């Protein structure tokens, strides 16, 4: 059977990983190539690179870096950030990305997901949804979680999946950064609503949070996190051993 996946997410600005790390033995802790290789060598099942650059110059740097990463690291790569058109899909896929994640771009342009799915296949299109509770409702937020779109999240996610999104990254704004565990209620609602892989994001603070995630919600396929991996609070090889000891299938 398919393993549960553990996915570190790297935010990249102007070709450098934002938020340094404290790994021993890395010459350059902000190099996406070195960090990516470190994770790939240490049990990551997939990598997400998120381009948070605003300028065109920074975007060019990002694609150069991405090429270098893809020439060095031989596990699946997902790329997100600033994906607004099918030309953006084309640009990052040519640099070696396997999947492309869309967020605000899909909110602004409802045709983006169906167009990209037709061109590159559903398995290539990842919907990244930032969701927050507002007035007792799960709401979709845009622009990095700053703007309430007013849209109800479950129906939005279902619509994107039926339009061709082959995977959903659910980032709970309510639990993001709190490090008290994933947003299990929100994840349960989403994983019951769609039949494509769901990746949990936001809230992991320790190994046990991943154990709880996969035990309570067996339908969730993967756990994504950033800083707890970057700062070594959770080490992926140890996390995977803990998961295995709890009878959760992982690649070791």
């Amino acid at each position, binding site marked *: 059977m398919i*393993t549960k996946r553990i996915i570190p997410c790297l935010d990249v600005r102007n070709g450098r990983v934002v938020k340094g790390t404290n790994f021993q033995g890395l010459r350059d802790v902000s190099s996406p190539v070195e960090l990516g290789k470190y994770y790939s060598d240490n049990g990551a099942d997939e990598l997400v690179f998120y381009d948070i650059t605003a300028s065109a110059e920074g975007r060019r740097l990002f694609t150069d870096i991405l090429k270098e990463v893809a020439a060095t690291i031989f596990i699946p790569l997902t790329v997100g950030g600033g994906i607004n058109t099918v030309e953006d899909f084309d640009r990052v896929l040519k640099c070696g990305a396997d999947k492309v994640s869309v967020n605000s771009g899909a909110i602004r342009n409802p045709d983006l997901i169906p167009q990209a799915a037709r061109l590159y296949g559903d398995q290539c299109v990842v919907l990244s949804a930032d969701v927050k509770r507002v007035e007792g409702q799960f709401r979709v937020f845009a622009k990095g979680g700053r703007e309430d779109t007013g849209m109800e999240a479950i129906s939005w996610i279902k619509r994107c999946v039926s339009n061709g999104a082959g995977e959903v990254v659910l980032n709970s704004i309510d639990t993001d950064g709190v490090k008290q565990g994933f947003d299990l209620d929100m994840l349960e609602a989403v994983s019951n609503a769609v039949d494509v892989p769901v990746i949990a994001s936001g809230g992991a603070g320790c190994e046990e949070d991943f154990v709880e995630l996969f035990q309570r919600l067996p339908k969730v396929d993967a756990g994504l996190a950033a800083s707890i991996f970057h700062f070594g609070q959770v080490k992926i090889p140890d996390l995977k051993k803990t998961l295995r000891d709890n009878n959760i299938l992982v690649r070791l």
Partner: protein
Amino acid sequence: MIGIIDYGVGNLFSLQSSFRAIGQEAVVSGSAEVLSRAERLVLPGVGAFEDAARKLRETGMGDFVRSQAAEGKPLLGICLGMQLLFETSFEYGEHPGLGLLKGQVVSMAGRIPQGLKIPHMGWNRLEWTGGELLKPSDGEFVYFVHSYFAQGCEDSLAAVTEYGIPITAAVERDNVFGCQFHPEKSGGVGLAILDRFCRI
């Protein structure tokens, strides 16, 4: 030299890079003249079977691959490239493949237990069943992304993976090899498989 067959399907950057990473020169080309100088050929592919099979025909690459394989040149089909090695695919209709291996490509829908997601996407374990290429990788995890799979290929079956039912993961018959998974996305295990292919 490894010849990666470019017939307008999919992105070959990772595949070429992975050969480079194991110290092998790999050329991406759609020219029979260039590819015929390669010691080994790789047939990649992503997307729909019908479209890929048509492109193989239209570019003349299909006949070229068949003749190279008949001469005994090692050939490795990857993902859709593996599926193209078979006689027939039933992906949206019925379409002829290269016919280098006996078997058909069929949908997982209705054949795997309900509740399992399609595509079969992620890391799954190889169970070696025969042949040389996959033998040292028995029990290892490799990366899959596919919704169709080969059946009726008992005479070439090299490895299966369990997804409710045994799914054909790799095939091997004489000089013709195929991997349903992506060795270029399967970390060190995948690179080791590519490296062995370069030594066969």
